[in-house]
């Protein structure tokens, strides 16, 4: 029986003797493997990015959103003709009355023009309370955050991010200055540290005012969100029930809010983005399949070009199995080399993505690397079976006569 080492060398010489064919197949294979790796690393990068963003919201966080989530069917409020009630500051205060709730931050949002001595800038104004700082794990570089005051006091103070400070004040001191926001004036009492970014709000671009001031500035009595921080992770379900019950009581028996945990949001995004990663990985894997078909065709041509050689090997005593093995080894060699080249392409590609977009942790997942190599080898062998069997079955006399 033909030794593996000799068979491999024989097949290797056959590959080397036909450089164009070999390079073509290597290219097809490596592009397939490379694209699986690059695309899944992009997907993984996006997933990790979003996950990290949401994690920075803070831990053990429960978010109260006005309006009933559609998932639980018909909205009872609209069915009986009552409009949903707004989320109010009193609702927020009511939510503090649970032993497991450590912080409650009502939250409002609106767009307005911010200006100081003729310098202007359009930005997002966030209204909240003293609690928001700790809840969001932000830091201060200068001054104070919003003061600990009654939740419904519309103090004319604001806290700004470093970008806002630089754009409006330049090198001059911002603390103590009076900013114009919309048609009102607010005194700058603090500058936020530039660490932190959450849900699209860059802390550097933040302007934060007391929630009651935001309500009157934008003339919206309702809240956009209420953030509730729970003392322990285990207490989250209890607190969620408490929130729903409290709001229902306060809203005439109608549960017209949606209560979500940060975990749930994270998990949803994680699921969606994982599915996306699998999907793009799968699509890229199709290119491997196409490479397999190419290999089959090229191997079929190779077999017919080498018909007389196969006849010769048979006349020298090669069994059908030996011929089959020689062709399959050639395919395995090609797929292996193609997979290695693809690995290099894929890893260099995802490195380039990380280099170009440093915020995107585009590392190829291990499963994608392993799966693409496996698929490359399996398609290579599978699609070579047909040509290999064709070669093995050749009639030696006819094969020898062919030219």
């Amino acid at each position, binding site marked *: 029986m033909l030794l593996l080492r000799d068979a491999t060398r024989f097949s290797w010489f056959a590959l080397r003797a036909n450089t164009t064919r070999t390079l073509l197949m290597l290219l097809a294979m490596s592009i397939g493997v490379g694209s699986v790796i690059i695309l899944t690393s992009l997907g993984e990068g996006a997933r990790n990015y979003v996950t990290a963003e949401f994690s920075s919201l803070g831990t053990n966080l429960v978010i109260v959103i006005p309006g009933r989530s559609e998932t639980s069917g018909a909205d009872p409020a609209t069915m009986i003709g009552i409009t949903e009630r707004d989320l109010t500051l009193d609702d927020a205060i009511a939510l503090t009355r649970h032993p497991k709730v450590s912080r409650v931050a009502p939250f409002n949002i609106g767009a307005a023009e911010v200006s100081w001595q003729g310098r202007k800038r359009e930005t997002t104004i966030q209204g909240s309370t003293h609690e928001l700082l700790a809840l969001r794990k932000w830091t201060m570089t200068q001054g104070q955050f919003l003061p600990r005051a009654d939740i419904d006091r519309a103090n004319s103070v604001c806290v700004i991010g470093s970008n806002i400070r630089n754009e409006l004040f330049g090198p001059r001191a911002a603390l103590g200055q009076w900013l114009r926001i919309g048609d009102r004036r607010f005194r700058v009492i603090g500058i936020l540290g530039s660490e932190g970014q959450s849900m699209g709000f860059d802390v550097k671009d933040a302007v934060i005012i007391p929630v009651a001031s935001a309500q009157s500035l934008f003339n919206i009595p309702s809240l956009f969100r209420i953030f509730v921080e729970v003392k322990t992770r285990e207490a989250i379900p209890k607190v969620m029930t408490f929130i729903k019950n409290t709001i229902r009581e306060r809203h005439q028996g109608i549960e017209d809010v949606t209560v979500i945990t940060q975990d749930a949001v994270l998990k949803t995004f994680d699921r969606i983005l994982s599915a996306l990663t699998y999907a793009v990985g799968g699509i890229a894997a199709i290119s491997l399949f196409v490479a397999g078909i190419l290999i089959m065709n090229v191997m079929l041509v190779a077999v017919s070009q080498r018909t007389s050689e196969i006849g010769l090997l048979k*006349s*020298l005593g090669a069994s059908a199995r030996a011929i089959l093995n020689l062709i399959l080894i050639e395919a395995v060699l090609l797929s292996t080399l193609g997979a290695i080249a693809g690995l290099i392409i894929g890893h260099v590609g995802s490195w380039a993505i990380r280099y170009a977009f440093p915020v995107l942790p585009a590392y190829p997942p291990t499963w994608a690397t392993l799966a693409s190599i496996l698929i490359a080898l399996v398609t290579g062998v599978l699609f070579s079976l047909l040509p290999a069997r064709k070669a093995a079955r050749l009639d*030696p006399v006819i094969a020898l006569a062919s030219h």
Partner: protein
Amino acid sequence: MIKLENIHRNFQVGDQTVHALDDINLSIQDGEYVSIMGPSGSGKSTLLNLLGLLDPPTSGTYVLNNTSVTELNEDQLAALRNKNIGFVFQTFHLIPRLTAEENIELPLVLAGIEEKNRKEQVNEALVAMDLIDRASHKPDQLSGGQRQRVAIARATITKPSILLADEPTGNLDQKSGLNVIEKLEQLNNTGITLIVVTHDADLGARSVRSIRMLDGRIESDDNPGLA
């Protein structure tokens, strides 16, 4: 020893049946030197391929060294070809990407013999065929005569009992043709059974036994008595 009894080999070409071998009975003893002559299409190559186990008969029995080879399966035939039969073709059939040396060692490679155990035999064959300084040349760097000598070295590397040559000088000039025939005869002198198909009457006349074929039959056999 070779013994053919009532051998037929038919080919179906469309709705026509070609009787390439038509009731052949033939015995060849070990160490004989036989030439097979006859017009084109008379069945010489078909007979040689059959003797070399490349082609099965349609009917009849073939006993080779006391084994009825008509009953063997593909793998057994392949193994027997490797060990017992050497082929030399008119068109050499060397693998162009392999050196002379590598072409010669192919039957040993196919037999699964370790590299270190091959070298010695390959060297002996190179010496015997006057190819020692051509060992690492590719076929396209060799003359026709040299190529055929590489093919002879390859055919005999497993020390087969039978050497079959189908028009071995057909593609060679007279001088290198003669040289090739002398090499084959040299091997015959060491005991190998040599069967040569040839067109050339002069070459045919050199053999001890001469068989003439016509239309798939043996027309004459000048020494059947050896059987």
